[in-house]
């Protein structure tokens, strides 16, 4: 039995692998966050803990410079309609 293919029938199974793991989530509105995934559903609503959110603020006035704002939250509910991608954080 191939351990990699077993139990993976649909895309959400891949997200399931990341349950209680740290994940990287890209969101609409130039936002990204990493946090420990606790739960998700079919709408990609996510519950994350130990979240660090990174917001890219594009200053359109001054030659499109990008500034970055960060904030941390203990626990977060992310509404699924803003989720672009969910992935394991890049392993260093």
């Amino acid at each position, binding site marked *: 039995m191939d351990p990699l293919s077993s*139990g993976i029938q649909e895309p959400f*199974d891949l997200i399931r*692998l990341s349950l*209680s793991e740290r994940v990287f989530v890209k969101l609409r509105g130039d936002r990204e966050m990493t946090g420990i995934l606790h739960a998700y559903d079919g709408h990609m609503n996510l519950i994350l803990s130990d979240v660090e959110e990174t917001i890219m603020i594009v200053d359109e006035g001054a030659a499109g410079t990008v500034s970055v704002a960060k904030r941390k939250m203990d626990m977060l509910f992310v509404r699924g309609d803003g989720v672009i991608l969910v992935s394991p954080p890049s392993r260093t």
Partner: protein
Amino acid sequence: MSAVHGRVTQVTSGHNNCHQISRLAPSSSNALMSGFFGFDQPDLEKDKLKFAARNLQSNDGVLWGAETYDGLGDTLQEGGDELNDETFGDIGPVDKDFDFSNPKLPETENVQSYRQTVNQSPLPPQKAPTASSAAPLISLESIWDDKSPFSFRLNGAARAPSRDPATSTPRQSGIRTLQEIEAEMRAAAEQSREAAALQQRQQQLLLQQQQQQREEEDRYFRQRQQEQQEQEQEFQRQRLLYQHEQQQLQQLQRLQQQQLLQQREQQQHRTPPPRMLPVSQSPRFLEHQRQILLLQQQQEQQQLVRLQQLEEQLRVEELERQLRAQQISSQNLYERQQPSGPTLAEMEARHQQQLLQQQQMRQRSQSPAARNGHHNGQHNVPLQDNMPYLPQSIQLQQRLLNEIAQVDFFRDMQGLSQADQEALRMEAMRKILETEKMEEKRRRKAAKIAHMSRYNDLMTQSDKDFITRIQVSQLVSQDPYADDFYAQVYSAIARSRMGLGGEDERVLKFGSSGGVGLGAPIKGGNRRPNAMQRMQQQVERIVSNARKREEEKGLHAVHSLQGALGKTSGRSYKASPRQLLQVDPNSAPTSSPTLSNAQPHPHISKQDTGPHDAAAQAAKLGREALGTAADTADLVRRDPLTHREVLVTLETLYDLVMSIEQMKHDEPLPEEQGEEVEQWHQQFNALVEQIWAKLQVMTPLETSNPHPFISLLSVAKGKKLLPRVTRNLDSQRMFTLLTLLIAHFSQLDVIADAPLLETPEDTPGRDDVDRQTQAFLSSVMQSILPTIVKGELRLVAGLLGLLIDRNDTVAIARTKPGVALLTLLLTRVELIKQAMPEDNASIPSPEDAEHWQQMFDHLFDLLTPHFSRLFPTRLASGEAAESQDQPVWQFLAALALHATTQQHQVLVTSLREKVLENVVSAKKGWGMSEEEREAKLANVDLFLHALGLESSQIAV
């Protein structure tokens, strides 16, 4: 203009005053109006010119101010100047309501006195023209068109109000024919110039004469004004509306008056023109009016008679107008100019009634002197109660009246201080509101009950039962626990937290076929539990009824037909796929066949050199004891599991664990039939086998680095899974697992990454390691604890040997999990030692004891150079640091318990500085809190007690 309006609205009875004026002398009221609107005499003239010019331009049917034009002009009778005669009273009653007695004025004396008052008040206008001027308009309309006043009023109201005289003047003339107005305007332009000159001269004279009087009155007025302001604000809104209407009416009237004036002046040039000065709108004037009203009341009867006489006279005058023209003074002009007929009178009458009431109340407080001062020679307009009522104006007036009455009531009440009254009123209002609210609530409730009671007895008890049955049947499920899972687990946790035992599942079960989840226990409240009990009873009854019916059916029905339409109940969910291989878990070897061979691992034997000999021996012993030595024969080296493989495996494991937990829930009761129990056991064991296989504990030790099993523990959820897995493993497998874990202890991520914890800054990596470490300590250590606690000395010695043999002991000892594990082992041995005297059976064999001693000595020797470095690097200070140190002190204490005297000395020597530092700093308390010092001392004592010492013995 707008400023004037602002003030105007603050004066209580302003409209009354104007009203009166218009009744008394329409032409002069026009003058007042124009003054009010900011015209001077010359302005009026200019306006007329402008007006005429516009008229010319728009003669051919273009309407002025088209957006506000209401089409009134279309309904008017156009043309003939004979209508003018009507207007001026030449012909008899125009309207069925026409009443000459009303507009009549007392003869010359009255007019003269009126003029006086007008002249007395040359100050800017205070009062907006309001109700009073509505009357003339209506009457005008009735004259033009013989329509009921209502239609006009409606139209008039529909017009957009405009306060600007320049714009409103042309607009109002829409009622008349253009030609007419044009002609009038042209004439007026010439004549009004003369009139203005005359008037101004006259005015100046009068102004000088009455300067003194004015000042006096001003003072008084200001006083009054303040009082009135309060009242006025309440009326303001309504009045504004009213005012707009009135303004338009006034302007119409003014035009009319101008016409009249022109005629008069043509006839008799010696007569001074009527006052068209702003004089009459002064605040003082308002005061006059109020007093006039008072006087009016008194003189009402008398005047009525007089006015009737005057009316007669006037009629004669109108008939012989040319003749009488020279005799009639300009005062008569006022009277003549009131052709408005009965509607005007009506309006005025209504208005005055109301005003009188209001002012009577108000003037009670007025000094008689003040009253008298203004009353000399006032005209008085009679009240005519016999006039037919105008519904619209009545409505408005009654509303005003009510409000006035209310305000006056409060004013009377407020003889005390203003604040007291205010408070009292607020209180009263609040109470009233409250009561109203309560009443409203009660009424709504009653209404609701009444509404519902319509359906009383609509359903019989059996109907209700039937409905309930349907509802309850929806609640019954095959697996009440799973369907109610979260509530069940939550309530279990809550109960255990509250220290309550009790039933483990809040589920109503009906045999094996289903039940109802009851959710979390309900605290407090009497109603819900009762409801629950009732439901419980009901469900039970329903279920038993169903059973009975089932049995009856079974007796009578044809068996072959039963279930033909599908099964109603059953345990179909249990029908998991039939096992292809049914392995008897008891007969099958508990461990891999490859492990049955207890040969020492060649790789291990290669390491066994030098000082490690003893350790290797011990490790071998341990392995033998466990029978878990790896066989190298079929060793296939593999790459360690990738992260993803780990995750996939873990997910599979979680699935298995959850299904096994579910199975445990569905474990058949022992008294049930043997077959079912057996089947259940088979399935259960199959699941355990799967889990065991997935854990890959039996993979040979050296297959990969890290070992697959260790890899599974590298993620937090793997660590968390372990306790749930080990619960289902028998002790033999647990020993195997434990051995593997200890053999590869240094491969664990928490050991390998432990140095990260020492990094001073707060990095994500450190946080992660910290998290993993916590998970390891709480989950993995927790799951191996029962096994170690049950272990014999021989086992423990073997494990310790294995640990020392296979790992970098010092490195492990410097990590939290390592310290925890070592402490655990040492404590277990200590417990065995303590139990020895009482429990003969547990006395270990001499070899075991000796072996343990060997292991311990070896450990001690290994750690000796590093004792003081076991403590974690100080990241934080204070209490937190002390709590971090505590496990180390604990371990050292455990070490000390087993140590010989000689080893004690070594311990003390190496830890002397640390102990002294703690004691000294605690006793001197360099800026430390009490808790911190206590923690320091407690830690030191923990260790010193093991040596039979105490921190208090240490002299600082």
